[in-house]
């Protein structure tokens, strides 16, 4: 799996610790890692170079000698730089003095123009407007029909080719566009959203067509619809569309995937227009204003806590989750809880993806390739247990164990291992929960605790550990009793 920027920095900064001011060579090394991280995230190479230059200036300027954690500081610089590049001014929609306010949607094939035209219409409705949609994609079979179906869900009318134009044998999008504005005025619609056909930026003929469409409708806003998983090509495409149409903003789509989204950064950098909206799903309501800071973190693979929270809120039954959390910390977490919450967890997407959203997860844990099928095996075992066994795994004797093994298609050893490890983990989480409370109260360094705070001349540094900080693998290891016991042979990876 990809490495986050933190991971990349880990190695370098351990070596550089205590060095004080970083030399030019050190900074170069750090910049190389940043370059790798950004390229992996699909940020365009030219944009990466420009960013490197800016980050370099800031990094050299910073006095990292006083920093407790220079890696963190550089990372902060990078995040800030990205957020600034992605953000800047937010797009404010100003409505035309003479309605309708015209919005033109343009972009490559498959970027999501039609779906997002409907989403935008819904958004405008939410703003108290009266939008109308224009089906000017006469190229793709059933494109207009798709738009009509979506529009029907939100009670927005759709205008498309008139029968006279079509009868002449040429369904011309430019003509459709022309008629649409007049129709909008006639119907008293104050926002007009024009969906166009997807087109290649290098297709001179089609780019000319969209220029003509634009000339016909004189859009107040022209949005380039960009797929979040686009690679290096994003820049060329954006430049071409910008040169032809003069874009006002960008709509970034399919952000509900796990693409890092570097294309957005590239487009913003090169075109200089704000990313206005973010589309995060296939439903019409999966559409909102864009958050630059979230994407910045995502590009760096730094974990997107806000999105994790949203996903968790969607996936987990709030009350259930709270009770489960309480039981977890209290040591009374059962297999039943585990099973329930695992089902919810599955809704959040592949485990590896969810893991990558967690900040502060130790690299060792994240690096382990977790096959979601392993989870299914664990689930299978638990499902073969009776309720009594799930709530009180202590009652599982050899005959129960064999039954469970047979029912789940696993071995008795597997079942034993699961039960033992679960118990140990439960105990550990309980102790962990207790420990953290004690730590916070005591504000003292515990003897032998790893990853603890530093002692500066002014006394122990108060650690800003959040409520949900995860223990390091070493801490976890230290807590498992009897490593040579039932878990023997399983030894944790180095």
């Amino acid at each position: 799996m990809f490495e986050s920027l933190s991971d990349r920095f880990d190695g370098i900064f351990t070596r550089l610790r205590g060095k004080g001011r970083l030399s030019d060579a050190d900074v170069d090394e750090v910049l190389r890692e940043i370059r790798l991280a950004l390229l992996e995230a699909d940020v365009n190479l030219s944009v990466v170079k420009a960013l490197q230059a800016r980050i370099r200036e800031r990094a050299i300027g910073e006095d990292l000698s006083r920093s407790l954690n220079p890696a963190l500081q550089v990372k902060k610089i990078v995040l800030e730089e990205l957020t600034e590049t992605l953000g800047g001014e937010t797009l404010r929609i100003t409505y035309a003095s003479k309605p309708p306010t015209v919005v033109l949607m343009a972009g490559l094939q498959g970027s999501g123009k039609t779906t997002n035209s409907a989403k935008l219409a819904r958004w405008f409705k939410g703003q108290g407007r009266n939008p109308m949609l224009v089906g000017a994609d006469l190229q793709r079979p059933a494109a207009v029909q798709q738009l009509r179906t979506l529009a029907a869900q939100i009670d927005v009318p759709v205008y498309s080719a008139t029968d006279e134009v079509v009868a002449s044998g040429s369904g011309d999008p430019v003509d459709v566009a022309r008629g649409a504005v007049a129709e909008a005025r006639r119907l008293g619609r104050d926002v007009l959203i024009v969906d166009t056909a997807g087109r290649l930026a290098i297709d001179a003929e089609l780019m000319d067509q969209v220029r003509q469409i634009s000339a016909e409708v004189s859009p107040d806003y022209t949005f380039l619809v960009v797929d979040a998983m686009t690679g290096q090509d994003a820049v060329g495409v954006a430049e071409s569309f910008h040169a032809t149409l003069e874009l006002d903003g960008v709509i970034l789509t399919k952000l509900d995937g796990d693409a890092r989204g570097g294309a957005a950064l590239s487009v913003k950098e090169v075109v200089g227009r704000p990313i206005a909206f973010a589309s995060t799903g296939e439903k019409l309501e999966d559409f909102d204003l864009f958050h630059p800071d979230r994407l910045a973190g995502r590009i760096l693979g730094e974990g997107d806590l806000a999105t994790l929270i949203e996903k968790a809120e969607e996936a987990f039954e709030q009350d259930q989750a709270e009770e489960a959390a309480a039981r977890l910390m209290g040591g009374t977490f059962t297999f039943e809880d585990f099973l329930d919450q695992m089902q919810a967890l599955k809704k959040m997407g592949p485990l590896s993806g969810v893991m990558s959203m967690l900040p502060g997860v130790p690299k060792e844990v994240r690096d382990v390739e977790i096959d979601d099928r392993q989870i299914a095996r664990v689930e299978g075992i638990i499902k073969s247990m009776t309720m009594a066994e799930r709530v009180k795994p202590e009652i599982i004797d050899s005959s129960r164990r064999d039954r469970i093994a047979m029912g789940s298609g696993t071995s008795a050893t597997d079942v034993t291992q699961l039960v033992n490890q679960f118990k140990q983990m439960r105990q550990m989480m309980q102790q962990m929960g207790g420990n953290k409370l004690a730590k916070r109260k005591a504000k003292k360094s515990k003897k032998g605790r790893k990853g603890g705070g530093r002692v500066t001349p002014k006394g122990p540094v108060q650690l800003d550990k959040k409520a949900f900080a995860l223990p390091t693998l070493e801490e976890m290891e230290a807590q498992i009793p009897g490593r040579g016991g039932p878990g023997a042979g399983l030894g944790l990876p180095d």
Partner: protein
Amino acid sequence: MELVIVIATVVAILAVAAGVLLVRRSDRGEVLEPPPGTTRPRQVGVRETAADELDGPEIEVVDPISVVLPPEIVITGPELTAEEEAANIAAAEAAELDGELEALLEQERPSFRDRLSRARSAFSGYVGSVLSRTGIDDESWDELEEALIRADVGMAPTQELLDAVRATVKERGITTSVELIEAVKDEMKARLAGPVSLARADSPPSIWLFVGVNGVGKTTTIGKVGRRLTDAGDTVVMAAGDTFRAAAAEQLETWADRCGAQLVRGTEGGDPSSVIFDAIASAAAKGADVVLADTAGRLHTKTNLMEELSKVRRVADKGDGTVTEVLLVLDATTGQNGLQQARQFTEATEVTGVVLTKLDGSAKGGIVFSIRSELGIPVKLVGLGEGAEDLVDFDAEQFVDALFDQN
């Protein structure tokens, strides 16, 4: 695999998620309402997954012949004028007409190489730069690296590729830039070479399943493949397995009409597995040669949708035909995420080949290198446009040569 790591991970995430919710709630200090909209009434086209999942499919045999009309669309705003109504019909007819016109205007199609060459200027800019210097220096390597990265080959595969070339350069004592470029080309071609034929079953029908994320060109590709097959004299059945997207079946219907294939569809929002199963049954009954099964675009991060796809595959396997190809349709503009897509789709359905679409654009599609080297999945077909003829067999030689073309 270490069971304890699995548990630790899951527990950790649960702890975080639950803990996070706790923190949120205590911050707000009040009973939280479910987020607005969670109790929406069911809308047309809203995707819900079947709860029955793994307990074997519930097959609803849908009458393939009857054209199932989408439910009446009611617009409660200002009414559609008769104009608009007619316009919709007219537009559909126009699109059909376009198809016919296209056939009439059949020009000599430019070759694969020509079409790719159109877009190669940026890439060949670097190559040109390398060639302008007769010798090989550090800059040559840097420029080659840049060229490959810009082609979406990816940092790690690029390094690996160039390291291999470095070894070759040393071995063969290469000193000129022209030879260097040839060495790079050779290395790339070697890595991409592979089988491109689409597998058939011993006895018909063969089933080819088309999968991929949203917007890559699955339906259009099926249209092209259908055309190719019918031109060669095969009987084709198309299964409208995208039961989610608005007007998806209509879109496929247009393509079926264009090449004379039979279309099997179900109701919008229905079960894709049953549509495909039914199409297979129909094909078997008629003695058709190939079933081309469309599926809804889905992001590989959506576990429930990927499970649905696995079910589609399983059900298809149970039908009266053989699934001989699962083609991952991949957009050439896709960046590094393409590899993850390939991984997840392979896990769900055992992908046998890639169709690389939209290669007539400026994107180079370099991600196919990783997909080939890490997953062993070959590119079989290439899409070069939106027309029914715009499909070619993947040719590693031509692909790489065109990449380096100097015009």
